[in-house]
């Protein structure tokens, strides 16, 4: 039996990037389009005229284009991870990575766009509000913590992402 070093990193990285992309789509579809509580530059250009609504729509589109790019790269990374024998195909690790990615998206986007640059806020008409802080705490930190817990459960403990396993068969 060959000793194979298990490597969770490709799966975690791919899942996380897919989670970032899909988290971006949830933000864009639910908050920008369905609920219309904010747009990409709604704090700079309030969508109170048709022209401003359409300008915000363009910037929303550019944001979505980059979100799509993240998803596409994540998909390509997942495909490559699936071809590597040393990468364990763990559902828990993958789901945890998706959740972690969603949390990273909310945390990074929330800190940068909502708080540092003031491009928009979760509920634009309220400005910086409790919704922004809940977005960071629940959508950001809690999702990352839960994601990490699932990742650790999938790889059998809170160990490093790569470790040797003589009995490893390639697919869990």
């Amino acid at each position: 039996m060959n000793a194979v070093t298990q490597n969770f990193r490709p799966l975690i990285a791919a899942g996380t990037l897919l989670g970032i992309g899909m988290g971006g789509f949830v933000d864009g579809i639910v908050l920008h389009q369905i609920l219309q509580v904010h747009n990409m530059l709604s704090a700079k250009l309030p969508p109170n005229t048709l022209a401003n609504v359409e300008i915000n729509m363009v910037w929303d589109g550019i944001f979505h284009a980059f979100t799509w790019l993240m998803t596409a790269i994540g998909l390509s990374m997942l495909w490559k991870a699936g071809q590597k024998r040393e990468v364990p195909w763990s559902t828990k690790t993958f789901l945890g990575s998706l959740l972690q990615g969603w949390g990273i998206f909310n945390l990074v986007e929330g800190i940068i766009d909502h708080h540092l640059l003031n491009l928009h806020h979760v509920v634009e008409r309220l400005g910086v509000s409790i919704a922004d802080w809940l977005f960071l705490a629940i959508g950001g930190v809690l999702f990352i913590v839960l994601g990490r817990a699932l990742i650790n459960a999938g790889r059998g403990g809170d160990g490093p992402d790569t470790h040797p396993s003589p009995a490893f068969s390639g697919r869990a």
Partner: protein
Amino acid sequence: MELHQGGRVKSDNRAATVGTERAKSTLRPYFVPRFRAALVLATLLFLNAASLLACPVCDSETGKAVRRGLFSPDFGTNLLLTVLPFPIFLAIIALLYYGPPAFIQRRPPDKADLKAPTR
């Protein structure tokens, strides 16, 4: 002798033909799917170009106001601000994929590090 030379010419011609066929059979699988993909892409672009002509706001006052607002002196700043989180996402993914950079990684001291300094 001539026959022999003729035979060689024949066999050279055959080798050239086989070489050409081989080159064709090597290149065909490379170019044909790409040509088909380019054709599909060109068709899609052509069909979308037709929908651009149907743009309801392009020649309207609103359309002009949108273009003025969009391509204002703030265009570069707005673009930068909109895409700013994405390099950060990719940096986080690189960190997850490759691990932390060598200068941050904690590693056990090498034997050489444990050696007593000699003067």
